[in-house]
């Protein structure tokens, strides 16, 4: 498993930043300080400190129920939407605390897009309208601009060639993998800086998964990506840095290559070698 992971880690076109942590190249996008989160009385995150770098793919791995999803849902303040949920600590996005009074969560979410575990295209809308949903929901949109935005977003999400001749058909009629890429296109159309992906491939077959992973590789050039996955090979394949969460605590966080080949913590090693989880 260890060997396997390291083989998959660094694709040819990627700089081998495994040897020395490349902190300079990507400046800090998110600075998470002492983040704790609750569902009612239940504490699910225990004082997490983490720095997420710009234009890098950061993977969050860990056993089920360890708080992976809760963590990224804090990054765009979706966590607090759940009744009874709350959080403490600070998250700085480009130096600004996203929990401060002056930050409107609605505007924050336009900067920090999100793709969910299960593809959730809007069933009442066509493919085209799905892509434009974010813009239509939030502001008026000129028609001729629309076509351009739709094409650009769908091309970026590597879906254009498959759907360009049926943009007026319902988004729900696509296959699962296509729906997920449609959701990615929908998120990209709003032009966020950050893309949060919450187990985006868990409902998809291997081929669709491979397409999404290829896409993540391309998108990292323009976006900061945080991807939650329960699939360690996937984390090894797509990410630059990996965080291992267990029982709501950050056990280890480092370069993906390093974390998978020479984990510092015993618990990390046990998890990635499949002793539990």
């Amino acid at each position, binding site marked *: 498993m260890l060997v396997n992971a390291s083989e998959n880690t660094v694709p040819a076109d990627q700089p081998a930043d495994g040897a020395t942590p490349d902190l300079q190249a990507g400046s800090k996008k998110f600075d998470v300080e002492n983040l704790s989160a609750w569902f009612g009385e239940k504490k699910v995150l225990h004082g997490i400190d983490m720095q997420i770098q710009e234009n890098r793919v950061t993977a969050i791995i860990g056993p089920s129920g360890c708080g992976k999803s809760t963590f990224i849902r804090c990054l765009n303040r*979706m966590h607090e939407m759940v009744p009874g949920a709350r959080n403490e600590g600070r998250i700085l996005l480009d130096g600004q605390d996203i929990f401060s009074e002056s930050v409107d969560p609605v505007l924050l979410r336009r900067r920090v897009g999100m793709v969910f575990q299960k593809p*959730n295209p*809007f069933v009442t809308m066509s493919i085209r309208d799905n892509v434009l949903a974010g813009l239509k929901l*939030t502001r008026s949109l000129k028609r001729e601009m629309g076509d351009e935005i739709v094409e650009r977003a769908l091309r970026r999400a590597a879906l254009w060639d498959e759907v360009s001749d049926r943009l007026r058909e319902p988004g729900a009629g696509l296959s699962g993998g296509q729906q997920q890429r449609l959701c990615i296109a929908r*998120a990209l159309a709003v032009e966020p800086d950050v893309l949060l992906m919450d187990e985006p491939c868990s409902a998809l077959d291997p081929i669709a998964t491979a397409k999404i992973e290829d896409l993540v590789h391309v998108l990292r050039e323009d976006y900061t990506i945080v991807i939650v996955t329960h699939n360690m090979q996937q984390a090894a394949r797509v990410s630059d840095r990996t965080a291992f969460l267990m029982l709501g605590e950050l056990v280890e966080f480092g370069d993906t290559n390093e974390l998978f080949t020479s984990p510092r913590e015993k618990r990390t090693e046990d998890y990635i070698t499949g002793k539990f989880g």
Partner: protein
Amino acid sequence: MTGDRKTRNKRGIKPARGKTTEKAFIGLCLAAVVLPLVLLVILIADVVIDSAGRLSLDFLLSYPSRKAEEAGILPGLVGSVYLIVLTAIMALPVGVGAAVYLEEYGRKGWLANLIELNISNLAGVPSIIYGLLGLEVFVRTIGFGRSILAGACTMALLILPIVIMASREALRTVPNSLREGAYALGATHWQVTRQVVLPMAFPGILTGSILAISRAIGEAAPLIVVGALAYIAFLPDSIDSPFTVLPIQIFNWVSRPQEEFLKNAAAGSVVLLLTLLILNSVAIYLRSRLQKRRTW
């Protein structure tokens, strides 16, 4: 549970027994479908046969009369349509609005549960009680008098709980993942509700509303209390007019001693049934059109 397991275990050894039970059950279910249908067909056939010779265009366009063969249903028909339109205008926006607030905006808690319990209780309150309430509040206190407006207000109250419950049910069928998807795009609460949740819940809301309105068309009791007239020789010309409706006209004819008026009652029933049928068809047509637009 254990009984279930026993039959399942035995099925391998004695296939006949499970099969017999199943067949008996299916038979029972079939009977439960067929019996009411047969009764319904007999009832409708009986009404249609009784109405023979009386149901005509003249019947639809005439005013009530002391002579059975000259009497018509026009004031009742017009009154019913008038009343239903007014009821719908009042009850639907309020009902849907209340449902949207309770489902999408209101905080969940003991108060919400209490309100929910009360709404479902209100839906079960006998309609005559609403009639008494309407008489006291709309006719006397507010001073609408024995008018269509008072009747429509009473009817709106009567169907409001049904509209609210049906609309909430429809709103609940919208998966939360769609709401989250819209929030994640930077939509406000209102934008999510208006552009994602409501369009998806709309067919369900429409179905529930139509059922509620169908119920209102058939009601006579609360309107008798509110003061709808049994005999009326003119058409309502404003919302302040006195009025009658189909069920009251039918009730009036049925209670006449003369045999001839029973024919009128039967004919009136057919008109009432047809009105309901038309209304429901329109609703189903609208709904299917909306759904087709969705899958286009």
